[in-house]
């Protein structure tokens, strides 16, 4: 083995190992000893940093897990950590024994328990996202702050507060049973959906960390899809949705990091393999007569993915899907996006009349989207003046430089 290959590490190996290690060790020692578990895991990384300088062990992930495990046993001996016994024991962990917890299938199970615990209803959505990113995904405070475009101090406080709540409420590392299961799966999917969107939709900030955020959301969603307790139509549909969007990740940014609209994207740049994976998950979602928002959104993304060119888009199918989506998810955004489809199918005048009934105030913070769609509808109606004035309004509200560049380019094209 030459020295180079001897030192190569898989990208983000430590980050993904962190989630696995925390999951296994908290299952062993209990969620209430989370703080000590985090210390032990951190310690294993620091140990690796010092001792791998001149060579990486053949199985770095295994080495890290083994080291964390040894350090945890060491802490046990010193009385700083306590194994859970008797009434407080995690029956699962006791029954299968310590060694078994380190088997691959049990590691997945432990990771899933950790995600479910992070999405416990004692935490609000934003806290759930931050805690999941830290514990299950191994993001640090600085990375979470960069990914969520939030100040480090805010994230730090949010994490501290969340862990305090988890402790006070004695949140268990388990996949809840019975009636609680459905609502908890819903929370988990919502958190993963929002995490993906944070990475995908927001165009400001560091592109690399946003891509990581999407990749993490997909990795965790895949875990959810692979477990018999959590697999559901919605989970499969969400995975499909993420695949379709991720397939367009590169095509929607230009050379200067400017956003490229769906209509103008070079479709040969779409990742066809990811699109086909999306089809597999969408087929598995098998929704029946009452498709959920996830299923409908995935089906909409699928329609765009199969159109060879923008002109080939089946607007009739899309409008049917959007009409149903509006019924189950009546947000201002869904209604706004539907108008673009409506305009393509029935003409811009129809869409403009409906736009007038939308409350511009529901777009606070995202006014640029409202005005951009409005500009597009005016353009389709042949009203250049309306298009220009709306683009100017959109420009004044655009938050990121890539959005501004997109709007400026459109303004230039009509001058």
């Amino acid at each position, binding site marked *: 083995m030459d020295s*180079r290959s001897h030192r190569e590490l898989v990208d983000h190996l*430590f980050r993904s190992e962190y989630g696995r290690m925390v999951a296994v060790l908290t299952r062993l020692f209990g969620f209430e000893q989370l703080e000590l578990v985090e210390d032990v895991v951190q*310690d294993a990384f*620091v140990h690796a940093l010092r001792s791998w*300088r001149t060579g990486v062990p053949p199985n770095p992930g295994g080495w890290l897990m083994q080291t964390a495990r040894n350090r945890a046993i060491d802490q046990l001996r010193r009385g700083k950590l306590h194994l859970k016994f008797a009434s407080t024991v995690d029956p699962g962990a006791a029954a299968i024994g310590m060694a078994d917890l380190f088997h691959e299938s049990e590691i997945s199970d432990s990771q899933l328990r950790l995600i479910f615990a992070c999405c416990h209803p004692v935490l609000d959505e934003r806290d759930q996202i931050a805690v999941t990113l830290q514990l299950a995904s191994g993001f*640090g405070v600085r*990375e979470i702050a960069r990914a969520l475009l939030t100040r480090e101090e805010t994230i730090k406080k949010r994490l501290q507060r969340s862990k305090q709540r988890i402790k006070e409420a004695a949140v268990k590392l388990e996949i809840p049973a019975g009636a609680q299961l459905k609502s908890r799966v819903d929370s988990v999917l919502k958190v993963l959906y929002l995490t993906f969107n944070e990475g995908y939709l927001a165009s400001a900030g560091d592109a690399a960390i946003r891509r990581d955020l999407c990749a993490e959301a997909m990795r965790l969603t895949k875990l959810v899809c692979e477990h018999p307790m959590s697999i559901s139509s919605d989970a499969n549909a969400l995975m499909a949705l993420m695949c379709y969007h991720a397939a367009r990740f590169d095509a929607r940014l230009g050379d200067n990091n400017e956003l490229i609209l769906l209509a103008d994207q070079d479709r040969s740049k779409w990742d066809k393999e990811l699109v086909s994976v999306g089809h597999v998950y969408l087929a598995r979602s098998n929704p029946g007569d009452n498709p959920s928002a996830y299923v409908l959104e995935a089906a909409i993304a699928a329609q765009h993915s199969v159109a060879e060119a923008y002109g080939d888009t089946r607007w009739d199918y899309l409008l049917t899907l959007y009409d149903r989506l509006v019924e189950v998810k009546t947000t201002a955004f869904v209604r706004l996006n539907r108008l673009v489809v409506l305009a393509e199918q029935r003409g811009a005048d129809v869409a403009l009349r409906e736009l007038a009934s939308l409350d511009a105030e529901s777009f606070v913070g995202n006014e640029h989207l409202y005005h951009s769609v409005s500009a597009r509808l005016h353009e389709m109606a042949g009203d250049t003046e309306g298009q220009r004035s709306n683009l100017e309004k959109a420009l004044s509200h655009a938050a990121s430089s890539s959005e501004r560049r997109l709007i400026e380019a459109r303004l230039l094209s009509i001058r």
Partner: protein
Amino acid sequence: MKDFMLIFKGTDYSGLGLSPDEIQAKMGKWFVWVEKLQQQDRYVSGEALEAVGKTVKSADTVIDGPFAETKEVVGGYFVVKAEDIDDAASLCVDFPDFDLGSWVEVREVVVFEG
């Protein structure tokens, strides 16, 4: 060429709030440095040291310490080949931990004639 010892001093990595990704990135920088030294045929050997230990003051006085919290803990060392002390010091420009407040002490290894 003579042998020089590069002694790494400063803070231990723990307690800095480094994320897994940051630790991995830091490790990548160590790999790059070691590889560069090896390609130039400068690298001889090296070891890393645990941050905690014992201090023996006399035959019957053994105390705990240094501790990881100490700001001048020795984290490890490399032995490298260099023309002279300035040349050896110049090999340290790629030392990866300056940003964490650590530094390198460069000392020539004494050769006993005989």
